[in-house]
């Protein structure tokens, strides 16, 4: 029971952010769940490690919201896998998520990196 609610909390914390990262990853082309995990790890320099317990619920939720579509395909290594593809609706969502993200970064930045002279006065 505890483990389960941990997963849930993490989804909630990362919600929005994780959705954005997944959608952004899919911008570069259709990908399966394992591929998304690898891609996020590579691009973040091993900093972002997405839990499967967060990833799969997120993917299935995004599909239910029609932001992504899925189909079964053969991978390069002849492995049958479920590929997710971003939809037009998903792209719109991604754009608004990115916009919001930038505003948050900006806002946090302006709070955290206060100019020294102002803080002295």
């Amino acid at each position, binding site marked *: *029971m505890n*483990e*389960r609610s941990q*997963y*849930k909390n993490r*989804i909630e914390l990362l919600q929005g952010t994780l959705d954005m990262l997944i959608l952004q990853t899919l911008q570069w082309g259709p990908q*399966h*769940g*394992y*591929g998304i995990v*690898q891609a996020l790890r590579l691009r973040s320099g091993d900093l972002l490690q997405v*839990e*499967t*317990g967060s990833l*799969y*619920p997120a993917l*299935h*939720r995004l599909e*239910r919201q029609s932001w992504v579509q899925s189909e079964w395909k053969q*991978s390069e*290594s002849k*492995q*049958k*896998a*479920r590929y997710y593809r971003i939809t037009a609706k998903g792209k719109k969502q991604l754009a608004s998520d990115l916009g919001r993200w930038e505003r948050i970064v900006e806002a946090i930045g302006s709070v955290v990196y206060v100019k020294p002279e102002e803080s002295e006065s």
Partner: protein
Amino acid sequence: MKWFPSFGFQRRKRELQEEIDAHLQMAIADRVARGETAETARQEAAREFGNIPLVQDVTRDMWGQAWLEQLGRDVRYALRQLRKSPGFSITATAMLAVAICANSTVFSWIDGTMLRPIPGARDTGDLVSLQRGERNFSPTPPFSYLDYRDLREQNHTFAGILAYHHDWITLTGGAQPERAYISNVSANYFDVLGIKPVLGRFFLPEEESRPVPHVVLSYSLWKTRYAEDPAIVGKSIEIARHPVTVIGVAPEGVVGAMPGIREDLWVTLDPLGTDVWRMTHRSGGAVWLNVIGRLRPGVSRGQAAQDLDTVMHNIVAAFPDDHLGDNRITLDPMWRSPFGANGYMAATLPILLAFAAVVLLLTCANVATLTLVRFVSRRRELAIRQSLGANRIQLVRQMVLEGVVLSIVAGAVALVLTSWTSKTFAWFFPANSNPLILNGSMDHKVVIGIAVSSLLVGMLCGALPAWRSSHAPAVEVLKAESASISGGSRNRKLLSGLVVAQIALSLPLLLCSGLFLRTLRNLAGANPGFEQDHILTATVGLNIAGYSHNEEQVIRHKILDRVSALPGVKVASLTDWIPMTLSHKGEDAYPEGYVPHPHESLKVAHAEVSPRYFESLHIPILEGREFTPDDDEKAPRVLIVDQTAARRYWPGQDPLGKELRVWGRLFTVVGVVRNSTHTFVNESPEPMVYMSFFQAGYETMVQVETEGNPVDLAPAVQNAIHEIDTRLPVFDVRSMRESTQMASSFAVIQSTLAGMFALIGLVLAITGIYGVVAYRTQLRTHEIGIRMALGASRVDVLRLVLLQGFWLTGIGLALGLVFALGLTRIIVRLLYGIGANDPVTVVSVVMLLGAMSLLACYLPAHRAMRRNPVTAIREL
């Protein structure tokens, strides 16, 4: 896929499994490519992935279908639990089924009568029944044709107003004349009701008041008498020896506009041109139509009544002599229309439904008691489940579901039962001359009602105990085995509350049924003021068989002569009305020299009776004389009044010789008779005038006082009449006793059902208190053992156990008494010869319930007293 969501669910589950497998395979492949051994790669990939079932679980939550899967699991679990305790399951199901059936039966009767006042008609909610003057039970038709036409043409609030006159007639032309029920109707009759013909057409506006011998047949008459002849339209049939042409057939199920009364054929208002007088006058015998209107959309009943009152006011102003007395117009929705059967239904059935609802509540309390007792003993199981991770909502849901499963099964059983009991309504009505078609109906409304009530019951029965039980802290329950010794104070309070509720609910049921039973006894024992034994009556369809008036008078005299001469006949007389058969003849009467108060109704009941009528019914003549054979058409008009009429119109004066104007004619009072019952034993007395049969008689009924059993004489009387003319139709030959049963049929319905409900209530309350006291005593076995070991006597133990039962009973009785005395107020109108708070009934009912509950407590107390203290202490 939509119909079988679980198939889609299984497919998606499989796909998720494959998706995760693919993930792992790819992870393993990558690791192997990096140089790890196959074995470590597999282990590492699995470790990295995490808890697979849990990932599946949280992913599935996203599908929004998880509740379905869980529900399936919970239902299976509930079924397993219920199977484990068959005693509880069967008892609870049976009780719930009976309680739901009680409700749905009464509701099906309401549905079949009040909610379905005019079968086949469109939007009956927009229809209102019009009444002029005093609003009472079974009024006579209130409108003349001319008044009706003015109301129809001058109102602004109705989409249409129809008029009809219900009567009976004989279908001749066959070997034997056959009685049929017929209505003279306005041309727009079927239009206003919204009914289309299955064959031919209905009446045209220009046919309304012109003599056109056209007839519309009901579907059932067309089917039974004319073998569904598809070419019936245009054919000529014979009604009362007159040829008429069939122009159409009404759809199946259509029985006319009078609720609960069947009509077989419909003709226009004056099909033969013989009723011109009736069509061109506004008072007296020309007041003969019942009127029903369809409100325009958006118009309220109040607005419509005001509108009609204005029109009526103008009519009264223009024709004041034709409209003496009360002319205010009242509108009733069809479910309680005073014309037809619904007036009676509306006074009885809703009250019975309220009783049935109390039974249902009582049953809920009882089943909740049983459930609670069961859950308390299941506390360990619940605690274990809770500590394994079930949250409270899940536990409550689980327990409520058990209640719902029980009540759905009970609902299904009740459905089967009700499909039979709904048809039993007709049993309550003895054979009578009215074409009653009263029956319960089992349609979707009833089925939905059953489903909803059973679901509600399930919730009620399960939710309360479940919520309580789930409050128990898991650790406490698991730790202390002995915590169950007294069952926890919270549950004890709830149990006590439920027992008190059961006693409090069953007391009003018992009290009401006691009052109804005594009412029934009083009605049966009441003296109606006339002789009911040794009287035989038979109706001769003379006026409807197509004889001329002179022929009729001759035949009537012949009937009287022949029947009087029969051996075993003491007195024979003729009448056109039989008391206490729900039939009622009313007329406006204007006493000479009497100034009515404004809006005072001048309606009197009347009957036309031949010489020796009062003698055969043993109604004493108080003043003046009885009718003689000389009071015929050539003699001056005379009448006999009853005491009520004499006191009302000529208080303190000698009524003999006074004059009364009826139908525009003056009648002289020649006698006063003692009051007797007209319709119901408990009616408020209404003035009654008797006219001489040979001056004003309409229908012909033979009334015979016999020496022996009246029914034995029936064949002889029938033969005597047929000897005069074999084609004379004779109907409704039965004893006065049988006929007058009609008047108490509603009292019989009330007391039968109230009695059954009270019996159910009593059994439930007694088993409830027994169950709780027995259960609690059992939990205290250990304690009782210690007490006895320490020196408590058996009497002490007995007192200990009895005392708690005593308290519960006492509080229940006190609360129940308050509730009951409130409830009896709504039935006070239905009682006769007994007050709503009759002390004898109240005391005996309280004693009965109290004694039964104490007996129920005594049994477990006695058992506890007999226990061996040593074994009792060992027992936990």
